[in-house]
């Protein structure tokens, strides 16, 4: 069973966000990691490979630094890597990212595509689902459990207020939610092996498209920083006084109760 995992490199969730002089998010000095939800996708792919055999290919869209995250996935156990790295790409919106990834994925033999349900940087939660549409594949978002039987997948998906069980044909695109598995740490042996694994770097031309073909549908984002919340009132006194005062403030001042 051949599995493709689409992976995004993101800022560490602890990263301080700074806007640079040109209005962009400043990546200088920021620790870059595999998007946490994509780690669940990598882990699930590796578990399926252990069960059914086949190869796991990690596909990513990004710059030179993204190679380190692909190597990390390889150190976990992924076999191959593909990085689409093209300097002509600017303001890649979700539509464009999905189109580019779909073109790259279409060149790889696959039985299943896994991705994270959301990236913790732009938080848009669009690209994997859009890619499914571009590839004309069924998709299920936010899965908590996956069973494969022949060409049929049974998944449990998280919904508001509960969960649902969905049966679908594969190939399909499934996006991973926390709870699907516990991602493994790369072993020392894995890290050594990863250095020798094949990582193909492709440009848009290699995929037979131009930057104009994937011109963004959305305006370039204008970033701003939120006004920091300030510390409010500390309520002192004995516990009974504190509770009474808080209830009173919530009713009369905050009008929140």
């Amino acid at each position: 069973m051949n599995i493709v995992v689409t992976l995004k490199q993101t800022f560490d969730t602890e990263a301080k966000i700074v806007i640079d002089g040109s209005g962009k998010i400043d990546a200088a000095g920021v620790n870059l990691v595999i998007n946490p939800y994509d780690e669940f996708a990598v882990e699930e792919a590796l578990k399926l490979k252990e069960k059914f055999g086949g190869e796991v290919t990690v596909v990513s869209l990004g710059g030179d630094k993204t190679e380190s995250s692909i190597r990390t996935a390889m150190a976990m156990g992924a076999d191959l890597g593909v990085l689409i790295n093209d300097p002509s790409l600017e303001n890649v919106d979700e539509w464009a990212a999905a189109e580019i990834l779909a073109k790259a994925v279409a060149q790889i033999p696959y039985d299943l595509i896994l991705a994270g349900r959301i990236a913790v940087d732009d938080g848009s939660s669009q690209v994997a689902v859009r890619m499914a549409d571009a590839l004309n594949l069924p998709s299920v978002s936010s899965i908590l459990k996956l069973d494969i039987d022949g060409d049929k997948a049974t998944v449990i998906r998280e919904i508001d207020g509960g969960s649902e069980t969905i049966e679908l044909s594969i190939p399909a695109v499934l996006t991973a939610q926390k709870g699907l598995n516990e991602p493994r740490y790369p072993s020392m042996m894995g890290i050594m092996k990863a250095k020798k694994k094949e990582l193909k770097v492709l440009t848009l031309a290699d995929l037979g498209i131009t930057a104009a073909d994937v011109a963004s549908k959305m305006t370039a984002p204008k970033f701003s920083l939120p006004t920091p919340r300030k510390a409010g009132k500390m309520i002192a006194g004995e516990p009974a006084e504190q509770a009474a005062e808080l209830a009173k403030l919530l009713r009369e001042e905050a009008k929140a109760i």
Partner: protein
Amino acid sequence: MAKGIWIIVEQTKLEIRKVSLELLSEARTIADKTGEPLVAVILGKGIADLAKTVAAYGADKVILVDDDKLADYTTGAYTSALNKIIRKEEPQAVLIGNTAIGKDLAPRLAHRLGVGMASDCTGMEYDEANFLKFRRPVYGGKAFSEVAANARPVLATIRPNTFPVAAADESRQAEVVNEAAEIDAADLRAIVKEIALVASARPELIEANVIISGGRGMKGPENYVILEACADVIGAAVGASRAAVDAGWIDQKFQVGQTGKTVSPTLYIACGISGAIQHLAGMGSSKVIVAINKDPEAYIFTLADYGIVGDLFEIVPLLTEEFKKLV
């Protein structure tokens, strides 16, 4: 010719979700400003009676797509049916709540239509150049991004609790149109076998007006009854931090934060939660934050509107009694 602002109205067991009413209320003001009609689209089975409700909340027109194949939500069937109707009617904008369904449907539909989309928006306003511009938190709320679409229609999902629900006007009438669901066979490759909803009298976490949440300071699973008792007095939902979920004290579906739910309630009461950046990513847009924590140095106190340094096992039951006097 004005082609309208469309709201995809979500219903659970034939009850319209609160976030859909929030979107109708806010879009009504944009409809009034622009002269665009406000259109509510409802998909499902046996949904005709819901038209009256969406009319009362501001819809000028209601499109009903009633079909057996739409009884349970599936990505494919809903995308297929909506794609055809939207291509025919050419609305300016299509909005849905940032819910489990909205997050799944909107990107697939946007791609089928070949258009842009803004996800999980916490702001939306009329824009002369691009019809609507959207404000959305990025990097877990540590920055905001303002975006608009270069072409119509634009799709967007809006975070629940972003906009207030306006008062219903039962005298309002809307034109009601039935549209057939044209669903391609290729869009029927996924079948819902079972839906397991957790029976709870408490509101759904992402839509709740008030959330009382417990973290590491809860000390064990048995202690959540303290929060539940308080929640039930004020009609709140119960939440948790990652520390409590990872400790196995409470199910992951209650987790608020970067790897859990993103919530935006009027009031968020954080009990025994230190306020890690990943937790703030999930609740930082709450309107009023209360922190109850033993540790006076807890980070959460630097951003809480009201703070109590104290033992939550003492404070919360007392607070529950105080709330009983108020409600």
